[in-house]
């Protein structure tokens, strides 16, 4: 039974004993073995973020090596074998092992804080998703060290990726590790959806949700509907390679184009899966640094949702040169051009919000402004390649390389770095250096443009993608050298941020709980947040709770949650009225064991199909252990 709010609310006072008890309840065990039992969302979120940035670093180094190889014509630094492995790994890791997990990591860390709850809906599943991701990434990079990395491109087109044309284990590793990352992404997506819809602080109706939470919600729904297509396509491919099915073998009635349809049905939304949370980060930063409510909250939400929907109707524009019927493809030109409208609405809502504001030009804001310059260009070249005739000239050339780096680095990585500066004090309780942050931004901004802008011209001059070298007569040498120089500057820019981050941990510059004066709930927690996130689940009456509280001088909270077990409030989907209390599970080793069992199966099937059966039952047993109720069976 819900008790109505009393007429004269009484003040809540906390005894230190009760707070300590709450701390013990949510505490994560120490020690090495304890590390594998952690389930708290901040632990898992932080691991996702750190691991993803490690992969960003590694894949970035591969990118630099690629640029060095292409710096001049007929260079000998990397041979074709190594180059092909490197560009395949660069694309695969950046897309699957960096971009998606880092966005999920930020969402896992901040969505529960921003909606004012104490953990994700399924903490153990959260941990499972992380281990699967970690093992997948390690195996993938392990294959590179053993020189058996995949080399058929991140898009892995059949029949090039079939056993006949790609013997060896490289493509097998690719398909199985992609399945890993799909599992990880899907678990995170389901959890984010359930956490967002059912565990928001009382009063946080859907129209009061922070824009980053909206973006994470849209991202999660997109993952749920996009990933199954690549699950099926990679399953068909692994079956073709391991047990001789004939899905993509032309002679037996197979269809190589089926792969392209399935892959791009996933692959196009994938780009927006990466972009959408970044859009949420931009809105978040703009609100805080203009120190006033954003203009067009509803328009921003609707355009993110629209981007999510439309992105599922664009996949054929990756296939304009495959010889599909012209008329059918024209539909996809029109659909691709329509995405300019929700993107335009977003951009202009932000401009309207920035107009004449007293902006605080701190580092996070600088990265957001950089985003505008780069993303507008990337968006415009995106409209260009939606044209079928124009695309036939620039498809699979460096023009496309330029285009999607403008969209993905400008659209996603710049806001991401901005968000890292923004949330760093919350995660670590330290402030990063502003001076170094500005250096980092300018180096990255200049380096980025010097690297990728000339690539537009190279593409128009006929330089195809995925070539490890080119003959001197082509005349592509100068611009390639320029791009390589730019890439070193860009790397230096990101390097400064890395050093800044590490340095801040050793430099004792403590952050206050809300150093930027932001309005959303994560800043109501300590820096870094306590293991229970909030001493009391807060209550919310607008989109800007912290600004409300500051004005009112008081805030209302939920009481009545027990401190001796992990309790959170469940609320209704639309208007966030409390409907119940959920007891969340404690730390456990089983998600880790389960991830190990699943990994054994996925890696094992590369060598023999019997591992599928073994792993199936092993995973089933670990799941039983994971879900088995504790004795004595809990009563209330």
């Amino acid at each position, binding site marked *: 039974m819900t008790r109505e709010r009393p007429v004269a609310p009484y003040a809540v006072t906390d005894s230190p004993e009760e707070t300590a008890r709450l701390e013990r309840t949510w505490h994560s065990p120490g020690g090495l073995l304890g590390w594998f039992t952690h389930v708290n969302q901040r632990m898992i979120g932080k691991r996702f973020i750190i691991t993803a940035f490690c992969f960003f670093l590694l894949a970035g180094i591969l990118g630099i090596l690629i640029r060095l190889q292409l710096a001049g014509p007929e260079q000998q630094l990397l041979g074709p074998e190594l180059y092909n492995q490197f560009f395949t790994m660069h694309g695969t890791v950046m897309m699957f092992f960096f971009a998606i997990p880092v966005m999920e990591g930020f969402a896992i860390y901040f969505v529960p804080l921003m909606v004012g709850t104490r953990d994700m809906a399924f903490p153990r599943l959260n941990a499972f998703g992380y281990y699967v991701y970690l093992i997948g990434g390690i195996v993938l990079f392990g294959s590179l060290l053993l020189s058996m990395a995949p080399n058929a491109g991140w898009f892995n087109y059949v029949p090039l990726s079939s056993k006949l044309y790609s013997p060896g284990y490289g493509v097998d590793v690719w398909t199985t590790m992609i399945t890993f990352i799909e599992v990880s992404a899907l678990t995170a997506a389901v959890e984010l959806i359930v956490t967002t819809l059912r565990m928001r602080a009382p009063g946080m109706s859907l129209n009061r949700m922070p824009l980053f939470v909206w973006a994470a919600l849209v991202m999660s729904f997109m993952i749920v509907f996009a990933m199954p297509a690549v699950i099926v396509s990679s399953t068909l491919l692994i079956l073709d390679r391991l047990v001789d099915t004939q*899905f993509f073998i032309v002679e037996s009635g197979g269809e190589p184009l089926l792969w392209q349809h399935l892959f791009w049905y996933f692959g196009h939304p994938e780009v927006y899966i990466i972009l959408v949370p970044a859009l949420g980060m931009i809105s978040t930063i703009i609100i805080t640094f203009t120190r006033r409510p954003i203009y067009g909250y509803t328009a921003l939400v609707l355009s993110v949702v629209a981007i999510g929907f439309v992105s599922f109707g664009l996949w054929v524009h990756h296939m304009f040169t495959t010889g599909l019927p012209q008329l059918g493809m024209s539909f996809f030109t029109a659909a691709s051009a329509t995405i300019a409208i929700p993107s335009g609405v977003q951009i202009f809502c932000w401009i309207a919000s920035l107009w004449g504001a007293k902006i605080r030009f701190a580092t996070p804001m600088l990265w957001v402004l950089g985003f505008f310059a780069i993303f507008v260009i990337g968006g415009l070249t995106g409209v260009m390649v939606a044209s079928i005739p124009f695309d036939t000239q620039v498809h699979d050339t460096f023009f496309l390389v330029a285009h999607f780096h403008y969209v993905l680095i400008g659209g996603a990585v710049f806001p991401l770095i901005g968000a890292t500066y923004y949330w760093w004090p919350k995660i670590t309780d330290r402030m990063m250096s502003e001076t170094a942050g500005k250096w980092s931004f300018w180096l990255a901004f200049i380096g980025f443009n010097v690297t990728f802008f000339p690539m537009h011209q190279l593409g128009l001059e006929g330089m195809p993608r995925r070539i490890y070298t080119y003959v001197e007569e082509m005349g592509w040498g100068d611009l390639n050298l320029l791009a390589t120089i730019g890439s070193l500057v860009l790397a230096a820019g990101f390097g400064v941020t890395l050093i800044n981050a590490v340095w801040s941990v050793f430099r004792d510059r403590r952050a206050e709980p809300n150093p930027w004066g932001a309005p959303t709930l994560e800043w109501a927690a300590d820096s870094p947040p306590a293991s229970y996130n909030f001493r009391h689940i807060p209550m919310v009456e607008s989109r800007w709770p912290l600004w409300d509280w500051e004005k009112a001088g*008081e805030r209302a909270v939920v009481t009545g949650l027990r401190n001796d077990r992990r309790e959170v409030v469940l609320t209704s989907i639309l208007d966030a009225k409390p409907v119940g209390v959920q007891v969340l599970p404690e730390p456990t080793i089983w998600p880790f064991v389960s991830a190990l069992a699943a990994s054994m199966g996925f890696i094992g099937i590369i060598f023999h199909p019997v591992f599928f059966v073994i792993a199936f039952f092993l995973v089933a047993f670990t799941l039983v252990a994971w*879900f088995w109720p504790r004795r004595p069976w809990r009563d209330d």
Partner: protein
Amino acid sequence: MRVVQGIDVAEMTRFNPDRRAPLWWGILGLITIESAVVLTFCVSYMYLAAYADVWPPSGESAPPMLWPSINLGLLMLSSLTMFLAGQAINRGNKRGLAIGVTASVLLATAVLVLRSLELMAYEFSWKDHAYGSIVWTISGFHYVHVTSIVFGSAVVAILAWRGYFTRQRQIGVVVDTNYWYFVCFAWIPFYLLLYWGPRVYGQ
């Protein structure tokens, strides 16, 4: 800043046996994802069929109808027993729950046996042509799912016989039942596609 009491939830239920439970939504998410997988398999089947000259390839005939149709009936029946088991525990009838879930597990096990016999009698292999590949893959996909609900529900049955579930503490039964429905009903599109598809399309 003054912290005041807004809502007190001390007396709210800690048992959320229905849509209030996060797990109910989590399983719905799983079912959504897997439904998308089912749909993608169906689209792949139709894509391969649409681009084939003859479907099934010359020399092959569409698989026999009898046993798959019986399987369909058994799966529907097992959904009914699951439903009745849920009704029983809603009334607090622990024994009814245990019997219902056990009956479902037995029915689904019978489906597995029949499916194994049917697959063993196929004259074509997945290695022969794309048609064989997709038929075997879809069959295998569904077979694995039936295996997993048999396994999962067997655990639920054991807990039920041991009296773990009560009228309040029954979210495990609810989500297991929902997933059970999904696996049984996923057989309908596969059944139509694999057995009726070639007969209708081949005409």
